[in-house]
């Protein structure tokens, strides 16, 4: 099936990301023409030739969860929605390898492996992102401390470029060019991944009064604890406070810094407790550590309480973590912005830090807030960090990630692979002066804030976000993080292969409706193709209450466009007779039955 979606509204939906670029940039630069959903290698090749014929470029897109504008096309493009390349092709239990198409989501992969009591080594916090997508953008996540970057476990990848399809092993010279390069070198079509047998794990959360204590404790652990934990995260007190919003009030995290560690063997438990005592830490209750461990899948869960969340993500040397946190706190205090930080150790020397603050995308201040993310990035860079992802937004930081020599090498490779510059053009490895200079200017301006120029001090308080919205509660249309989790479980998406029918799409429709934007009847009525199954509610990363919203949306749509009874009936018949539909509910059933076991792994 070659599905092409080309209504402007739907294309707009497909280029939505959890953190939006400023509207100005999107309007000025975004050149998305249509969405194409390839389902096979052949489709990918056809897509290239079609793009070439029609003078279009191709922008690969996974689940659209990476932020930074990586999926915003800067040339006239068709977007390749790769989430339909999702077949699992082979699982070798003896060899412990699995071959699958790269549009598969981590969630599906983890479920599949669970059936055979196998598990992944490293996996992302956003389980609903695609494997190919994570390979092209991030790569550090859960269990990264012990196992490192995901590319350590890739046996080989199959890459489709405009002129050929090739299999590239991990030891191959070319391999590194496809990892973390946002699909600019070619589209990853298939992946052969190493997996392992599942193991039980146990998490400990340890509280400290001061950041310095926590960091000292971390370095002690790295030195002396054998066997070491598989996963280590640091949560600053504001991050834990955020998580308190999700608890029922009867239990809560105290006002302190937290270190979360996960072990896959119990032998180091006594040693750990001794160490905790020496460093004057307090071990948290089991249920709180389990809760926090479970929250690893929901990095954006606090989104529910704020209109938007903004932040920066960077790789930082561990010894500078304390310094970074002091700096950001100072910065936050001086601008009255509640910053919260989480850091995940990726080896004994580095950590991925993730600093976020609430904002309001409807407010004019949002644009200024976006520049604050640059300021935060600047602080991280001054602490010796490098950006985690580039996309469009972090283009000014490109040089921090790649040295000049490396950049030249990568650009050379890009030219070899894609001489016509068809795939994801005008990003980090091509020349695109206009946006680069614009963002560089913005970045330079933002650094003024972070450098604490005293002239700006009187204005800085303007930036403080209006947090009264927390009490009012904000509408679901604003709280959707566009993470795409709902697209995986939505039975209607299974039928239509169109995100407009999923929760993400319907909240988008509702927003258009409430803002009186033009909305064609044919698109609006698609919102009725919903089973009210609330699966979207189950997986929602922002933990939104969606069912009442659908009732509201439908009554609004019914008033304006009428109710397409015959279409609804046809939809039900179609959905009930679809074989994948039964499978979907069965797989979800397993998940919900073993919900606790699955998520806590205790």
């Amino acid at each position: 099936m070659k599905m092409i979606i080309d209504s402007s509204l739907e294309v707009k939906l497909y280029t939505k990301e959890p953190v939006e670029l400023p509207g100005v940039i999107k309007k000025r630069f975004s050149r998305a023409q249509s969405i194409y959903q390839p389902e096979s290698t052949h489709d990918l090749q056809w897509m290239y030739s079609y793009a070439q014929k029609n003078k279009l470029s191709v922008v690969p897109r996974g689940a659209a969860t990476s932020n930074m504008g990586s999926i915003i096309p800067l040339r006239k493009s068709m977007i390749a929605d790769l989430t339909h390349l999702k077949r699992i092709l082979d699982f070798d239990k003896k060899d412990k390898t699995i071959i699958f198409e790269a549009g598969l989501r981590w969630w599906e992969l983890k479920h599949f492996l669970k059936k055979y009591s196998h598990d992944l080594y490293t996996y992302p916090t956003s389980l609903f992102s695609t494997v190919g997508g994570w390979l092209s953008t991030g790569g550090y996540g859960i269990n990264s401390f012990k196992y490192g970057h995901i590319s350590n476990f890739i046996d080989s990848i199959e890459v489709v470029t405009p002129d050929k399809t090739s299999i590239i092993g991990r030891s191959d010279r070319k391999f590194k060019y496809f990892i973390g390069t946002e699909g600019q070198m070619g589209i990853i079509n298939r992946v052969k991944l190493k997996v392992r047998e599942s193991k039980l794990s146990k998490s400990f959360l340890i509280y400290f009064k001061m950041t310095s204590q926590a960091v000292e404790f971390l370095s002690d652990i790295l030195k002396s604890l054998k066997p070491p934990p598989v996963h280590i995260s640091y949560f600053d007190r504001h991050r834990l406070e955020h998580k308190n919003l999700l608890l029922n009030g009867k239990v809560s995290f105290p006002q302190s810094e937290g270190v979360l560690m996960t072990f896959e063997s119990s032998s180091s438990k006594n040693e750990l407790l001794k160490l905790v005592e020496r460093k004057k830490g307090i071990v948290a209750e089991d249920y709180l550590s389990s809760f926090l461990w479970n929250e690893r899948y929901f990095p954006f869960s606090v989104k529910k309480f704020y209109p938007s969340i903004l932040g920066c993500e960077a790789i930082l040397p561990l010894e500078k973590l304390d310094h970074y946190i002091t700096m950001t706190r100072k910065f936050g205090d001086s601008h009255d912005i509640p910053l919260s930080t989480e850091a995940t150790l990726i080896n004994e020397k580095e950590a991925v830090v993730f600093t976020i603050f609430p904002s309001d995308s409807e407010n004019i201040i949002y644009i200024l807030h976006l520049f604050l993310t640059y300021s935060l990035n600047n602080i991280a860079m001054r602490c010796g960090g490098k950006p985690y992802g580039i996309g469009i937004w972090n283009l000014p930081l490109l040089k921090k990630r790649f040295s000049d020599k490396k950049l030249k090498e990568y650009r050379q490779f890009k030219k070899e692979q894609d001489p016509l510059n068809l795939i994801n053009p005008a990003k980090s490895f091509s020349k695109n002066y206009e946006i680069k200079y614009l963002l560089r200017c913005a970045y330079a301006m933002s650094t003024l804030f972070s450098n604490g120029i005293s002239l700006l001090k009187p204005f800085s308080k303007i930036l403080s976000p209006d947090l009264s919205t927390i009490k009012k509660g904000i509408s679901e249309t604003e709280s959707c993080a566009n993470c795409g989790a709902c697209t995986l479980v939505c039975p209607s998406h299974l039928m239509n292969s169109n995100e407009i029918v999923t929760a993400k799409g319907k909240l988008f429709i509702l927003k258009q409706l409430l803002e009186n934007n033009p909305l064609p009847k044919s698109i609006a009525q698609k919102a009725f193709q919903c089973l009210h199954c609330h699966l979207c509610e189950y997986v929602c990363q922002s933990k939104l209450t969606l069912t009442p919203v659908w009732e509201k949306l439908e009554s609004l749509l019914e008033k304006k466009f009428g109710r397409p009874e015959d279409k609804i009936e046809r939809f039900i018949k179609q959905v009930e007779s679809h074989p994948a539909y039964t499978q979907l509910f069965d797989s979800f059933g397993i998940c919900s039955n073993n919900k606790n076991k699955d998520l806590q792994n205790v």
Partner: protein
Amino acid sequence: MYERYHIETSPVKLPTTQIGKFEIIRNDQCLNCGRCSTLCIYDVHKRDPNDPRKMSEPVSYLCKNCFSCIQNCPQQALEMVPNKEYESLGNTYWTPHIIHTIWNEAEEGKIPVYGAGYRGPFRGAGFDNIWTDMSEIIRPTRDGIHGREYIATAVDLGRKLPWIPDYEKINLPNSYEIQIPMLLDTDPLKLKLKNITLAILKAAYELGTFVLLDIENYSDELKPYLKSIALRCPIGKITDIDSSPWKEVPVVELILPKRFHVSELESILEKIKTYHPTALISLGLVDYSLPEELLKQFRHGRVDILHYYADNQGQSFEGNSFIYQSIRKFQLNFVKQHMRNEITIIGKGGIAAAEHVPKLIICGADAVELDLSLLVAMGCRACKTCKVEYCPAAIGELDPDTAKQRIINLICAWRDQLLEILSAMGIRDVRRLRGEVGRAMFYEEIEKESFDFIFNDGEPLK
């Protein structure tokens, strides 16, 4: 033209009988996936007709407890809990299960299904003391229920001659054939409700059987159905014996008071014979001991039918005997006197389920009379105390045609079950089942055989 006996059923729902054994509860885990609706063959689960994307509330009373929806729900969103209203139905004899079964039969006219299987007990009080024995070793089974072999359920009311004494002057006694071995009581609880009487009478008329109608309930409205009426009257209250209903009904039943004089009875019998020579005469007895002077009346051919009355729970009014024990006594008595064929035995009281009919026939009855079960078919809940004005089924306001169809449905279901039993036994005529105690095992007898010599030194247990 040859025509097989056939009962026409049509489903009739009553709002008052929609009480299920269990309640199916759908919790908010439900995903509206519709798997329950594709699995359920009893229409418990359906999509909401107003919005087919959602499931409507489960119709619990249709549930046959097969658990298929509960086991296959991907969300485990369905649960089944005992229904309190169900458990409060009826009394110790007319249990919720019995009432619920009759309701099902009356609604659909089909043999009811119980999905979760029968978990025992394997014997109990009353009719549950009898196991029917369908061993094929005795006779090969017959195909009755699907109609490939015809099994007769018709029985005769009236005397049969033991032999023909004189071929020159054959004077056969009058008799009537009814199509099912079941007669219907028009007023089981003495409620004197016209709609109920009419419904039962019409049903009997269509079914080709008789009703028993108390003389005080007779009105001209019932005139078209006179040919299906057995007129019942206490012996002291007989008047106008030469007038309308008396002269036209096929059967006249006399209820004997506790104390009576035989000469009084004889004169009345004479009177009926003179005014209405073709009528069968039935004697209604509440006592299972048969005094010699009464036996004489049967022997001389003055009485054709013995109609034994037990109470609604099958217990005798006098003494302590369950209905099937009393009927067995009559049967044995007449067999010993070599006059079993000269008398028709009908039993009434405590017939609450389909299998009670063949069980009573095995014990020696030619036919049974249905009473309270007919009211239950109309929605009656066999409450401990019956007050028509507070009736939860509003029986007084029931439409006679609705009630009639429910009775026909019930009888059809019971007849089908009778056919099943007969075909399993390899018997092709219900008349052959009468007194066939070899086709049943009686718990008290088996208990005696097995344990007497151990516990009682050969003395019978008390």
